[in-house]
């Protein structure tokens, strides 16, 4: 990741990180019709602030477990951009050597411990890593990142219960974008997310302004402090909005599933849209970084036949 010697302030630093993610994903959109990226992509456009605000509070030793929608976390936690683009291209220089694609990013060197395309399936991993942290007296904390839809699954209940029972240093970070694919929350939840976490004795808070990385940063910081202090789990919900369709590069309007107004209200508050001054200021550098990542991906070789049966066991 390109680092600026000094951003004028934290807001701009966070803004920069969020913009970097957005421009990266917009580049995916631009590249997609070329068929160079043959991988289902679940874009985080509209949701970048959650990843940026949260990861800025984490130490390199802290661990993240995410879902298929994790471009933002990979970049925000410090995963190298060229290896990610190469992975999307299916190249052997990708972060998963071309075996992972968009849905299974990982960067253990910076604490991203895996992403899974099976909804909710990494939540217990975070709990288990936190158990290991506790037993080994590590000071790291572990974050499980998941969507509102993941909380439908029984394993979420099992994970909350276990984490609370054993007082594990894990943060449950729910990105509530209101939808699981094309099902709205109201069609799926008879429960309210924070109240549910609280039933397990897990302190729960929310960030309503999930468009603002600084707001997320602050709220997440309180949670991080609490977990470090108490060595017990916390839950935090970030209200957010997915601008694109569930998977792929389109939107949800043509289908009639969502109203444009729903998004527009959100976008009216999205700094990445409203602060065109900052967009203009930082875009050139970011674009250059992305260009370089694309070049790296384009120039990298495909995995050869010798890779096919490697690393199975």
């Amino acid at each position, binding site marked *: 990741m390109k680092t600026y010697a000094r951003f004028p302030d934290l807001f701009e630093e966070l803004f920069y990180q969020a913009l970097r993610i957005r421009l990266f994903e917009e580049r995916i959109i631009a590249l997609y019709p070329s068929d160079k990226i043959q991988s289902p992509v679940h874009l985080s456009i509209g949701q970048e602030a959650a990843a940026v605000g949260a990861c800025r509070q984490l130490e390199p030793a802290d661990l993240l477990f995410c879902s298929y929608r994790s471009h933002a976390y990979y970049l925000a936690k410090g995963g190298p951009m060229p290896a990610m683009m190469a992975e999307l291209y*299916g190249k052997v220089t990708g972060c998963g050597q071309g075996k992972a694609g968009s849905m299974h990013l990982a960067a253990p060197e910076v604490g991203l411990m895996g992403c899974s395309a*099976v909804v909710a399936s990494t939540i217990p991993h975070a709990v288990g890593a936190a158990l290991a942290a506790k037993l080994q007296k590590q000071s790291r904390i572990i974050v499980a990142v998941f969507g509102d839809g993941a909380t439908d699954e029984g394993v979420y209940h099992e994970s909350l219960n276990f984490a609370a029972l054993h007082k594990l240093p894990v943060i449950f970070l729910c990105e509530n974008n209101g939808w699981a*694919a094309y099902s709205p929350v109201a069609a799926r939840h008879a429960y309210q997310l924070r109240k549910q976490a609280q039933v397990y004795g897990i302190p729960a808070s929310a960030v309503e302004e999930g468009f603002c990385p600084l707001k997320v940063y602050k709220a997440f910081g309180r949670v991080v402090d609490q977990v470090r202090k108490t060595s017990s789990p916390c839950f935090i919900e970030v209200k957010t909005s997915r601008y694109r369709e569930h998977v792929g590069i389109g939107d949800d309007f043509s289908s009639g599933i969502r109203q444009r107004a729903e998004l527009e209200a959100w976008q009216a508050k999205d700094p990445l849209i409203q602060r065109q001054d900052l967009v203009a200021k930082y875009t050139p550098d970011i674009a250059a970084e992305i260009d370089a990542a694309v070049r790296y991906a384009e120039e990298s070789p495909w*995995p050869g036949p010798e890779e096919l049966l490697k690393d199975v066991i």
Partner: protein
Amino acid sequence: MTSPTNSDVLTYREAVHQTMRAALRDNPRTIIIGQGVDDHKGIFGSTAGLLKEFGGERVMDTPLAEEGVTGIALGAALNGLYPIQTHIRADFILLAMNQLINLAAKYKYMFGGRFQVPMLIRVVIGRSWGQGAQHSQSFQSLFAHVPGLVVIMPSSPQTILESYPYVIRQHPGPVIAFEHRLMYDLKFHMSELRVGHSPLTSFRIRAGKHVTIVATSIMVMEAVRAAEHLARHSDIDCEIIDLHCVSHPDQELILASLAKTGKLLVADTSWKAYGVCAEVCRLVAERAPGLLQAPVVTLGMQPAPCPTAKSLEDLFYPNLRDLTDALAALVKGRRDHGIRLPDEKSMADVYKKFKGPF
């Protein structure tokens, strides 16, 4: 549903959709239940429009809760409904194994025949375009291992139109149907529907003299293409058996074919070990190994999780070329058989055309 005539052309998607619509129309106690059955994508179009026609109580979206929803479907079946449950990817059915294997498969036997749980579970196998390790699996053998379950793998609109209405109207227990995503968009020619006997069996779909191909799902289509190629470019005449009901295959059909050809190739959509390839070998090894004039050849996924890079994915799945080559080598008894193989272009109209994202 009227019986299509020879000239009819239908996509796999249309065939599933027809049967789904007919199931709802013909029996008010049928429901379709699963994530996304009511959305505009409608499980790749197979349930499109049904919400509007039949309402949300009968075309029911669900939370993400595979174990729970499968149990709910089973309970609904016990109290009079006919549930059709969907899994948009076979991979997710791993979350419902307990309900399917410990409960649904046993509900009749375990209680001494006092209950029946008729239900259809539709499961879509993903493939290609970077679906990757968790969106590409094909778990027929996990269920076919377990008594009490019927597992089918429709290879065409024809077999869908024959099987689904039969299963839905007449079969007393749980049936798991593995559909193949890559066939959804493809147009197939229809023949007269084979009626008058249960479609929960296997079908000989091409007569031939030199080799018996036993195939499942999309590999049946590939087998037909390979057979046609070989008929054009060699003197090799393939007999093809669509295994179809992988839990209850027609053993006599396979053995009779093998008695004629003496050579057997098995082509399946999953891994070979402990899969369809193994089970067909068991049948032959137990009943008539003496019929084999050569070792059995098997084709399936490579023994690894599915990689996403196209260069690896292309190696991971057996393609038309591999299949044709294997057949030629098997029949000719040598690897350098000299028979022309299909080129890239001849494969392009199927899996190479598929574009994601899902």
